[in-house]
């Protein structure tokens, strides 16, 4: 949230916002068309990185509070040396993580034409 705010402030002081205003655009389009898209790009990348941390966090939280979930199951399985379950969970989480990263890249490429490659 704070990143959105500081990012937005930075973007609003930039040259292309002044250009947009010099065309006579109203504050609405200036904010939502020109500023928000630029400000949201770093937020999107960061959100997905944070998602990775959350997967790790889930292990701890679920174990500490004994919530029945993947993390809890994983820790229990490791304790009991239940290898197939551990493997399955790791595989599953890796797939989710990789998919999410891919999604983040696709979304970023959609938002920011500069990182698109032919």
């Amino acid at each position, binding site marked *: 949230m704070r990143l959105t705010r500081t990012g937005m402030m930075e973007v609003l002081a930039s040259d*292309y916002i002044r*250009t*947009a205003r*010099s065309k006579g655009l109203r504050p609405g389009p200036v904010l939502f068309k020109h500023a928000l898209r630029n400000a949201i790009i770093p937020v999107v990348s960061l959100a997905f990185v944070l998602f990775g941390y959350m997967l790790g966090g889930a292990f701890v939280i679920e174990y500490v509070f004994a919530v029945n979930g993947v993390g809890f199951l994983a820790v229990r399985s490791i304790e009991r040396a239940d290898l197939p379950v551990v493997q399955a969970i790791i595989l599953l989480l890796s797939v989710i993580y990789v998919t999410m990263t891919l999604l983040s890249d696709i979304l970023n490429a959609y938002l920011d034409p500069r990182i698109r490659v032919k």
Partner: protein
Amino acid sequence: MNALLEVKDLYVDIPLAAGVLHAVRGVDFSVDRGQTLSLVGESGCGKSLSVLAVMNLLPKKAKWYADTITFDGQEMDKVRERQMANIRGSKMAMIFQEPMTALNPCYTIGNQLEEALLRHKPVSRNEARDRAVFLLEKVGITAAGSRLKQYPHQLSGGLRQRVMIAMGLMCDPPLIIADEPTTALDVTIQAQILALLASLQKEFDMGMILITHDLGVVARMADYVAVMYCGQVVETGRATELFENPLHPYTQGLLRCIPVPGKTKPGEHLGSIPGIVPTPIGKQKGCVFQNRCTYVFNDCTSAKVGLTRISAGREYRCLLSPEVCRQNMNESQST
């Protein structure tokens, strides 16, 4: 007959931690259709802020006030931001100093061009696109149709500046303000862009304010010149008169800094103006140029130095009489 744009006694203040920065202090200028006014002066003298104030595009913290600003017969100080937004882009457009950062990296240039027209005129997307293609060709971009789909980062600096010019022209405004349109470009492109601006101005019969610190550019492009120093206009006049007969010591100094073919010998030192620009923070007493002027005398440090009018549109801000100023210039040239 009233001028297209007439600015009287414009001030811009920027509050800073160290005090109030008086960036523009009482500037007057006017432009008419079909004319080019050039604002010249060294970096930081308040050229950009003056025109940004006219367009009401100053940074938020900056405050501006003026005696009167009339544009197209309308008093602008009474115009509120809402109306101002209707005028910006449609009646006065601006071309910025930095083509690299002045375009939004996230949208195609087609999108950004069309938006300028769609905002002000009841036209369809297709009509807007046709106008964009027409203008891109006018500013010398080939394959304009396919360029519309490109993003700013895919274009070179020269091309982007052409796009900026086309964008300014989308609504066919009577006044175009070009803030150092060529400083970020290399020399060959500079000449092209300037020639382009001059021909477009003729073709569309626009008034133009051209900001620059290059007197060569002024000599080629301007009808009228206002020389600025430290937030004030120190000398104005028709370009030809001002170049032939510069009065203010600062203008004279500037002119001595340009090499003249045939007159400046190879290897000879070009002139320079010694000293540094005084800080524009806080009030100042006397002449703004006193600490760098060769002809400074007692009154310069205390008296209020106003603009002296010589003839219509010809003014200078110095306590010395025009005759003395002229003599000074001649003497400095003969040595």
